[in-house]
């Protein structure tokens, strides 16, 4: 499927075995968990990291509670506001997150620290030009894995694959430590870029690189399954997704599994997973509507089979983030609604 040189290059540099790294992350979280000092920003960061890597929404919700408590306990501490801004941004509460960053700066947090967080939010809501200004300034000031990586992912997100591809290599060459998480996350973003661009072969290389480094990296495994399915390897995709549909509390895995099972001619199993995903999405949309609007819209467009609800959620998502993907999601949902109306009229 792909050249061995590509694969071996993607597996450099050597980093700590993914299982060890996750055990060590668990070890750090365990120590914090026993602590009475729950408001610490470092603990929130560790939880958010595990939430992303393992697809654990309950970790993100826990981090959210702690970040809110952190601000309540130390409302003159700018760092607590930065931590809360990060968590709020993860839950797509972008306006509140930006307000937190202003407050953090007022309380003495350095402008560049606050701006770094703002750039992430600007990118998420489609204000690419604003984000580029901050990211370029940071990378010009100090070119390292963090600043170059952030600029690279912004290029990727904005659709400039040619520049991003050059920068991905450059960023990887800056990696001088052994923690597997940042480089696996970078490779995952590279895979996402190629998947969006429609180059599934390239996407697979980078999702596999991320999974090689970190076999339990749930989003990378989920996207790899999507690539497998798109390339006709549905059985592999089903095997890959089944584990995460069970272990993760993120309904995205069950939703994807339902879709692929349906395409594979297994309607009963598809309905079972779709029902599970629906129940979970309903709960999450009740508690964090903004955070799950886009993924839920995708679900209702596919195995959830409810284009009207998909359009409602896609519009909600577009209100929050004017990204090409959000616009495309609205367009797809509107088309699905139109198609359904047309079919109903014909009936």
């Amino acid at each position, binding site marked *: 499927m792909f050249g061995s040189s590509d694969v071996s290059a993607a597996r*450099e*540099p*050597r*980093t*700590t*075995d993914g*299982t*060890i*790294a996750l*055990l*060590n992350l*668990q*070890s*750090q*979280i*365990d*120590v*914090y968990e*026993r*602590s*009475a*000092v729950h408001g*610490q920003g*470092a*603990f929130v960061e560790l939880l958010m990291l595990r939430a992303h890597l393992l697809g654990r929404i309950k970790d993100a919700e826990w981090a959210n509670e702690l970040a809110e408590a952190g601000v309540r306990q130390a409302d003159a501490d700018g760092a607590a506001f930065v931590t809360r801004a990060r968590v709020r941004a993860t839950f797509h509460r972008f306006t509140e997150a930006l307000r937190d960053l202003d407050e953090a700066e007022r309380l003495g947090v350095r402008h560049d620290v606050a701006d770094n967080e703002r750039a992430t939010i600007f990118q998420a809501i489609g204000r690419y030009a604003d984000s580029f200004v901050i990211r370029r300034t940071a990378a010009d000031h100090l070119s390292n894995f963090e600043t170059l990586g952030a600029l690279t992912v912004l290029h990727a997100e904005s659709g400039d694959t040619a520049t991003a591809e050059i920068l991905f290599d450059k960023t990887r060459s800056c990696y*001088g*430590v*052994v*923690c597997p998480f940042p480089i696996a996350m970078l490779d995952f973003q590279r895979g996402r870029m190629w998947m969006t661009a429609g180059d599934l072969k390239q996407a697979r290389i980078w999702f596999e690189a991320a999974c090689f480094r970190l076999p339990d990296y749930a989003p990378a495994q989920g996207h790899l399954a999507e690539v497998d399915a798109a390339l006709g390897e549905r059985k592999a995709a089903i095997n890959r997704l089944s584990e995460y549909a069970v272990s993760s509390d993120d309904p995205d895995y069950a939703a994807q599994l339902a879709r692929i099972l349906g395409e594979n001619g297994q309607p009963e199993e598809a309905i079972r997973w779709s029902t599970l995903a629906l129940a979970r999405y309903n709960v999450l949309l009740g508690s964090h509507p903004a955070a799950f609007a886009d993924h839920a819209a995708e679900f209702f467009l596919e195995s959830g089979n409810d284009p009207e609800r998909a359009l409602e959620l896609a519009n909600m998502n577009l209100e929050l983030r004017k990204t090409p993907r959000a616009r495309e999601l609205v367009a797809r949902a509107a088309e699905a609604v139109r198609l359904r109306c047309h079919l109903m009229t014909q009936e």
Partner: protein
Amino acid sequence: MSDHGSSPRAVADPVIDITDLFAFPSPERPNHLILVMNTFPYCGPSALFSDAIDYRIRLRPLTIASTGAKAAFAVGEEETSFSCTFSAAQKIKGSHQFVQEGVCRTAHGETITFRVNDGHGSQSGGLRVFAGMRLDPFFLNGEGILATVLTQKLAFPGNGNNTAHGYNVLSIVIEVNVSDLFKSGDGLLFAVAAETMTIGSVRSRLERAGRSEIKPLVLLLKNLDPVNRDLELRELYNLEDPFQLGPHYVGAYRARMNANLPFFDGLDGKTDWPLDQGGTHPLTELLLADFLVVDVSKPFTEDGWFEIERAMLKGEPHRTCGGRWLNHDVIDSIFNLLVNAGNGPLISDGVDQATQPSSRAFPFLSPPNPSPPSTLPNLSATIAASATRD
């Protein structure tokens, strides 16, 4: 503190973080040297060593090149080392537990394998190795140190709380026959340093440790530095070969030490270490040679830390093995050294022993605490941030 969380990179990935280095003649086996490298501060029960790191302890023979105000060592060219590497984690069948294997390679080609957390360690010839989780033997009054730095006065109450109470670390303990150390058999005075190195096509140094408190205390404060007031020097310092500092940044390290050492000297309101005409502190060059110094011709002693260097400064022959024993109160020693040059009155931080003092039998360190307390605030970062505000 000691060397816990001694740079931003170490804080970001504690598996690379060397917390302490100890070297001492074995109290139980004559003619054997014990080397202990502790890593991963405040680790929880599931912590394991990285399989992408070479945990390495290096030794070189030393001679005393000069004594008195310009006391200095000459570091020999010959080197011996102990490189410990680890496997990926292997799950035990039918359990949620993981095991890890390790191998220690000496510079002379000797190899010994061991299983992590096997309390007996592994032995082959004159070499014995243990690796696994242990109770952190370090102890300090972190609150007192923080208050001292912030108030610029000694702020140790009579009884302090051990900030490191109950925490665990990942330890590597090596026992080696002294006669196996160097082929030439030359010398009985050694420099000892520990490093975490990347494994793979590119090998680079991530952390290093020698004497205690150099990075977390002596190099930490930026606000007094007349040259680099906003530079995190410790990250650069970690990249350096402990036996031979490169020429590029040594001036920056000197400037930082020459600025910070007088700060500590002045904490008791008097000057015990007058600077020379060029503004150089008498300890700067000696501390830049950042390794433990151990004399294996001398018997085991509990309080040898920096005794060899102090004797050199006085122009006298040293009396002890030097090095660093696990139960030695290094915080008291460093404050007495930096603040009053050992001239008294005696300074104590009010914390005089570890959670569970180490034993005198291999592997020396106490078994781990199954329920370690909450993670420490990063004391170095707190001190650095607080001291930079003014």
